[in-house]
């Protein structure tokens, strides 16, 4: 009996250990493969060169164009999702009736449950032609269209998580504010939002991290031309797109060209890891405890 219990506990612990193995696997894999790459390309060149042309005859290995492409699409996405998401969160929390909120919130969350390939297709065939009518001369593949659709995708992340943070603010704070004669807007802006600011910040950080790691939307709609630019109207390439492009193409395994995807992968991994941990740390450090 005792032995059986021990055995079961060991089996369960082993299952839990798989998650550690996964992390270990990711880190070791990225490190080993990227080491191949960095033996041939110095880290300095990788971080400072402004061209990324590993598949061309004239090879340049500067990650900056890919990072700028990633940041550009992410920036557009946040510019869409942050104001809209925050306004929705405040509205649902402070103004809307409970019934309305309970219907609307899950509906909005459907936006985040749509497969991202479908979003990519939507960006390319609906949003881009629409934007091209507004902005003549915009390229068929561009960061603006991909970014704004990505913004729609992460909208529920911002709105729902911020709304949760706002809900966690105790009623007494609001009531004190109303008692001083403040309107709902004043209460929301000067009392509730500041009190929930850590939760809101975390929601935004998570949204950014999701946007940075997003693959299919940008692979389909943002183009595949790495370039160092802040212009959202031209094609760019993100880190994720590059990985998809090379790993699903016909580049031979074990070549320097192939190893570039691991260098790009490790950049992406570090980027999201830092973002997630800043979020995690922020939540631990600045969480307001009321009870």
């Amino acid at each position, binding site marked *: 009996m005792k032995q059986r219990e021990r055995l079961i506990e060991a089996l369960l612990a082993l299952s839990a250990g798989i998650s550690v193995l996964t992390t270990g696997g990711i880190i070791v894999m990225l490190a080993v493969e990227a080491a191949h790459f960095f033996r041939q390309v110095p880290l300095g060149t990788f971080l400072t060169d402004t061209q990324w042309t590993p598949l061309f005859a004239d090879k340049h290995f500067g990650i900056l164009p890919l990072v700028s492409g990633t940041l550009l699409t992410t920036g557009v996405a946040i510019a869409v999702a942050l104001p809209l998401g925050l306004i929705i969160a405040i509205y*649902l929390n402070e103004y809307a009736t409970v019934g309305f909120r309970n219907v*609307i919130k899950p509906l909005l969350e459907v936006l985040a449950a749509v497969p991202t390939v479908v979003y990519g*297709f939507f960006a390319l065939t609906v949003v881009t032609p629409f934007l091209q009518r507004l902005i003549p001369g915009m390229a068929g593949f561009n960061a603006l269209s991909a970014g704004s659709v990505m913004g729609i995708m992460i909208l529920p992340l911002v709105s729902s998580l911020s709304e949760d943070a706002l809900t966690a603010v105790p009623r007494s704070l609001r009531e004190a504010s109303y008692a001083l004669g403040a309107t709902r807007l004043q209460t929301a802006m000067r009392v509730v939002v500041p009190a929930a600011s850590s939760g809101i910040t975390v929601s935004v950080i998570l949204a950014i991290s999701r946007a940075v790691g997003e693959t299919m939307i940008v692979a389909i709609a943002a183009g595949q031309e790495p370039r160092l630019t802040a212009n959202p109207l031209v094609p760019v390439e993100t880190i994720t797109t590059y990985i998809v492009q090379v790993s699903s193409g016909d580049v031979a395994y074990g070549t320097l060209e192939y190893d570039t995807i691991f260098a790009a992968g490790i950049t992406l*991994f570090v980027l999201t890891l830092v973002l997630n941990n800043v979020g995690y740390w922020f939540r631990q450090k600045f969480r307001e405890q009321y009870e």
Partner: protein
Amino acid sequence: MSNMTRNRLLDGAFRAVGLLATLLGLLLLAVFLLDILRTGLSRLSWQFLSALPSRFPERAGIYTALLGTVWIMVLTALIAVPVGLAAGVYLEEYGRKSRWSALLEINITNLAGVPSVIYGLLGLNIFVRFLRMGSSVLAASCTLALLILPILIVATREAIRAVPKTLREASFALGATRWQTIWYQVLPASMGAFLRELFWPCRGRWAKRPRCSCWGCWPTCRLRQKAPWTSFRRCPFKYSTGFRAPSRHSESTPPPLLLCCCSLRLG
């Protein structure tokens, strides 16, 4: 204009803006769904679902891709659900407060934030190359199982946490061992909550991150299925390779509709 009227006006204005923003969000969703239905529905036919891929758009179908998707989903669930349940049970029932469980905790939070394309690379290296599975359904399923594992673990833990302590204590009082308590009391009592946690997107509070991505976005990176034991391709990938050739639009339009149906049903 007095301060008070101004404040009232601003308040009213924000109410309008807030309502508009909310409706805009819903409008975007509606436009999106309508667009998919409009472009996809007319092209969706039995022939499209049951035909093999073809060079001729009007004869092409997604039978192989569809089967590939189904295969992968089933196999992924078969691999991931037992492991996820076991890990969740361990963390919640056994591994309290030890250093090992603290490590697991941080680890799972971080794993949940790793972009799916990185998992794709991992699968490519470990399953496809190192374990020599080749680009197969099995390799894809193993990779996807790793991807959804953190989500499953958190769902399990949320569900188990909701089981009242009295249930466990009653079981212990009757002389049941720990595992008997878990197997006969805790798990049956938490199954409903587990399934709810799993399929109801965003409803849980898991690490404050919606789990919507659970069934929606698979790592589409390089998980084509050729060889060992099947030659299927999954819808999303097929679809993503189809978009580059505009002439194939007629062929590649309905998949989003299908995908949406699938994910909405699951969601």
